[in-house]
């Protein structure tokens, strides 16, 4: 059985082996075929169900896709004292809002990627796992992430990088995570712009250094600075 799986893996993944432009197209085709075929096999009975209480509503992701992102985040940020759980920082909604900023074709690619990552047939073909990602054990989930991360096919590593970027950006962009990493947050600032120091006309700028600033106390800022007079933004241009 193991042998047969290996054999099939080689056969199916060969198109992705080169790293050229063409292989991207073929990889996309592979994903499409897997997702299409996956719907018609017994593996299709293994489906991820959207978790209740996911947050949302979502703009770009389906509840199912958001569920998969949450499951991935649970493994990228496993339980550790002081680190909020992904759901505590509203991670599915945060990932969704990042995905929603992307051009529509990119959104489509991300959604296809996350479904392929979760898909039981893809899991079977790529990693010999018969389950969707979300219904796998923790050990199986870590193994599946690692197999994408360490794949000899650059395209799977690209997929891993896309998922990793989104999850960590959503998670560590949340102020709730800052105490865990020892980041005190932005400092308070004095809003007034300091006066320009005298500067002789003929002085070569490289011959002098900037005046020494006083180091600001690093503590979280509460208030917003007083507005500085800027240029006006009229409602409408008048050609």
């Amino acid at each position, binding site marked *: 059985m193991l042998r047969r799986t290996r054999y099939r893996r080689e056969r199916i993944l060969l198109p992705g082996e080169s790293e050229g432009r063409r292989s*991207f197209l073929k990889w996309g085709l592979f994903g499409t075929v897997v997702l299409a075929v996956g719907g018609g096999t017994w593996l299709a009975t293994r489906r991820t169900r959207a978790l209740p209480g996911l947050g949302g509503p979502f703009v770009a992701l389906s509840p199912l896709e958001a569920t998969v992102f949450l499951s991935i985040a649970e493994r990228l940020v496993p339980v550790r004292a002081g680190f909020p759980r992904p759901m505590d920082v509203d991670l599915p909604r945060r990932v969704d809002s990042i995905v929603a900023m992307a051009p529509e074709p990119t959104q489509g690619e991300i959604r296809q990627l996350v479904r392929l990552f979760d898909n039981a047939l893809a899991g079977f073909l790529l990693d010999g796992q018969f389950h969707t990602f979300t219904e796998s054990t923790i050990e199986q989930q870590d193994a599946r992430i690692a197999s994408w991360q360490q794949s000899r096919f650059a395209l799977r590593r690209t997929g891993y990088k896309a998922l990793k970027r989104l999850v960590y950006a959503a998670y560590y962009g949340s102020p709730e995570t800052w105490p865990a990493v020892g980041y005190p947050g932005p400092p308070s600032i004095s809003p007034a712009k300091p006066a320009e120091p005298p500067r002789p006309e003929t002085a070569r700028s490289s011959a002098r250094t900037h005046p020494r600033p006083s180091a600001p106390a690093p503590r979280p800022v509460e208030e917003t600075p007083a507005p500085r007079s800027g240029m006006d933004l009229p409602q409408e241009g008048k050609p």
Partner: protein
Amino acid sequence: MSELAPGRIIEAGELRRDVEETPDVCVIGSGAGGAIVAARLAARGRRVVVLEEGGYFPPDKVKMDEAWAYPTLYQERGQRATADLAITILQGRAVGGSTLVNWTTSFRTPPRVLRHWAEVYGISGLDEKALEPHFEAVEERLHIAPWPLEVVNANNRVLWEGAGRLSWDREVIRRNVLGCQNLGYCGTACPVGAKQSMDQTYLQDAVRDGARIYAHARAVRLEKSGRKVAAVQAQAIDPTTFKATGRKIVVRPRLVVLSGGAVNSPELLLRSGYDPSGRVGKRTFLHPVVASAAVFPERVDPFYGAPQSVASHQFADRGKGKVGFFLETAPVHPLLVGPSLGGFGAEHEEQMSKLAYSSALIALSIDGFLPEEDGGTVSVRSDGRVRIDYRIRPEIWEALREGNKALARVQLAAGASAVYSLHENPVVMRTEADVALLDRAPWEPLRVALFSAHAMGGCAMGRDPEKSVVDSRLKLHWLDNVFVVDGSVFPTSLGVNPQETIFGIAHWASDHIASVI
């Protein structure tokens, strides 16, 4: 020549009807190149319209918050990267361009680079002597001066001390700031107006002299008529959704200055069907960057203080056939670092938990100088998205590996208790002897995090119209009224941070551009 219309910054996202402008000059892009050309042409009485895709963010409108800043102030909402995601690309998109969010590092162009351009690409008239007065002028206007060593932050001090102990070249960086409070938030745009970015300096000058700057106005097409561009078609962009509002801005100028940067300038030419010799979007260089994270016994607080103030050019010239690199530092904030550190799960969390004790240094490889190097490409996909490809040559992998080793040695020499590479399986180094472990690490795409904040090339200067895009005066070879003034005209990378080279070249080019209109 100049008309009565007052200069101002216009929020195109709020336009309620289509607009047509007929200035002398249309400048596309308001970054390091476009802003200076706009200001200098406006000062000479030319009527200037600037189109800028990004928004206008004066100091009181910015937040020291990464989750706000990257999607708001950066290209592709902070998600720009090569197509395979192997190289993350940081590039600003705002009034002021990347100068709004860069780390203020200011180097003049190394003379050996200018000599190389003259010898290999036949570029004439752009030498050290010609640029000297222009560098002096921009250094004066932008208050470019060395940062005092006494206030260099602890992360930069790691590079200073480490390089010192290894007896390597080291220097304090010159920065374009005035009244800097040493906050450490250059990358999310200066909240106190100290950074002398284009929006605070040359664009203010341009507006004073009558220039009209459209913020949230994306140039989508140049329309040709014979050997000239007759019109620039632009879309107004909604400031919240960043989608087109449906309002159009049509500019019919006598002359066009394309200053969109090394990705967006070639992109616009390609979208407009201009690529007569197949060289548009070719020879894209990135200074591909490898980073090194180190944990120290005492707090580094790398979040705070001027983010980049020390450099070492010890390995910039490594001899024939080798790619040089230079060493600098990077700010450490959670959103930037989280996706960049190697691995996932418990080990990743462990590294993140030490952020306050961490130093982040970078080695930037100097690409484009080997005869066989052709860099990356910028192209436009069939679905309309821009695409950046960059195949990392073996010589560049070698430079990245040696650069990583140099960074680890610096950090260990400065007293780091452990140094981590940014491989997916991080290489952990606790003594000098461990540095050799990097020789056995995998140097392949997506097995180690790579970055670029210096996109260059794509509309390369050169004498031969079949091998380059613009001539030595920055005019497109095959069109009579279009100049390209930004980092895209570099035929190679630089070996130093590019902003001041772009400032200097823009200041220089303004003189001869003014002479043709």
